[in-house]
């Protein structure tokens, strides 16, 4: 049984599809890259998976897991950086599902937070206000919080954008560690070389699935050219879609 099954999923806004007729299964422990041009529907797909967007049609199944058990790093974080909160307390939010709304942060939790900060290289930053962090440090902090969420499924939306090479490499090590621990990781990425080097599986998306499978088979010149020709604009006068059958994309 898969960790995540998509059955003929159409996701979109105001009836216009942004991801059209996507079917497939993500196996438990998969390390899947989602690749496609801007506007291909990568973020929309992720928002559907974490339950923030209801599919227009089709079903997304997490096989018993709750959408809130998925750790999600959005592309555009809606974080108020001027809020007076320390790095330690911010990262501690990742423990919410363990402590609940009222549970205390005891010795064990403190240790877990310290270890997460150490894993992302932010030891010594505990008392700093989050507003004083650089872009790279901010991303490291968000990864520390993801670590503490201890989720079976981790969804990363363009996690390495505007991040320098050293930080990307450090954070990519964490992704590899999650993969080695048997967690399912989905990541939207633009760096094709990075995907080829690290991600065994790829979904090439261009509003509709272009290809889904082993990275080497998916990222061919032909497929990438097809993805690039994708039409981005919604047609205001589009007729209602009557295709009910799943599209021909191959399930992984």
């Amino acid at each position, binding site marked *: 049984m898969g960790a995540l099954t998509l059955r003929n999923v159409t996701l979109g806004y105001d009836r216009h599809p942004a991801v059209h007729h996507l079917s497939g299964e993500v196996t438990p422990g998969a390390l899947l890259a989602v690749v496609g041009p801007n506007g291909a529907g990568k973020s929309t797909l992720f928002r559907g998976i974490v339950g923030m967007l209801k599919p227009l049609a089709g079903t997304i199944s997490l096989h018993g897991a709750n959408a809130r058990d*998925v750790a999600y790093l959005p592309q555009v974080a*809606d974080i108020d950086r001027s809020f*007076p*909160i320390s790095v330690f307390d*911010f990262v501690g*939010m990742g423990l*919410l*599902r363990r402590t609940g*709304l*009222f549970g205390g942060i005891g010795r064990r939790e403190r240790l877990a937070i310290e270890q997460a900060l150490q894993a992302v290289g932010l030891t010594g930053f505990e008392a700093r206000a989050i507003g004083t962090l650089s872009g790279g440090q901010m991303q490291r902090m968000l990864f520390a919080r993801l670590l503490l969420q201890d989720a079976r499924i981790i969804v990363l939306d363009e996690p390495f954008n505007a991040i320098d090479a050293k930080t990307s490499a450090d954070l990519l090590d964490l992704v590899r560690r999650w993969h080695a621990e048997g967690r399912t990781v989905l990541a939207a990425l633009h760096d094709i070389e990075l995907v080829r080097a690290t991600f065994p599986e790829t979904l090439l998306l261009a509003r509709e699935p272009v290809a889904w499978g082993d990275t080497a088979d998916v990222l061919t010149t032909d497929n990438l050219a097809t993805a690039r020709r994708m039409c981005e604009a919604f047609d205001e006068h589009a007729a209602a879609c009557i295709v009910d059958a799943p599209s021909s994309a191959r399930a992984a």
Partner: protein
Amino acid sequence: MMYDVLIAPFVEFEFMRRALAGVLTLALGGAPVGVFLMLRRMSLVGDAMAHAILPGAAIGFLLSGLNLIAMTVGGLIAGFTVAILAGLVARMTELKEDASLAAFYLFSLALGVTIVSIRGTNIDLLHVLFGNVLALDDQTLLAIAINATVTMIVLALIWRPLVMECVDPLFLRSVSRAGAPAHLAFLALVVINLVNGFHALGTLLAVGLMVLPAGIARFWARDISTMMMVAVAAAIVSGYAGLVLSFFTKVPPGPAIILVTAFVYLASLLFGPVSGLLRQMFPGRHLEA
């Protein structure tokens, strides 16, 4: 001499003692709520809500005269109605909270002024607009104390989701359903404390003892817990000093309290160690690392 000015008025006159008790209780509940209002960039929302409670209080007044309990209940109902309607509209449609709240509170304010002017005298209208902290009776003091107690307990309960919704609302939404209930509970607290301030300071200034202390605290503290303490302390000191000022001058107590608070705010703006103006103009030599 110091005794005559600072303590004697409260020893000699019962209405001063009552006023002091009222102001201290207001500070305990209102200032922490004000800090959250500021951190959520809702300071002006608090102001709008203060006007929104007017028709409820006015209907209470119409039904039973200057009965503070009736006015409290009416104010709570009107405030909750506006807060919840505005919150629901913001969550369910494209309209943002500020716009939807503006629409509801203007409607509410117009209705309130209409009701008061149909039935009341000019003195009633003055009481509604500016309150009278020197005329708090037992019942009203008790109501204020109960409201402040409820505020502190509820704030402790919703603290975690409230902070998380301020810092990173998307994250809270992705891990918990507590965001929306916490938000609505917080709006309820805002209304409760506005009704509280309404008795002492009137509908125009009620929000003063919430928003100004929070602004003061921002110049003195970098973390939210210290901010709360500074805000409460600032509200207590200003409330007390305002009462003394009002006792020895002809300034009415409500405006006196808010004037003193505003003065403390200006001083903090100048001298506060966290981003105060003097600190910015004379930051000292830069550090080595």
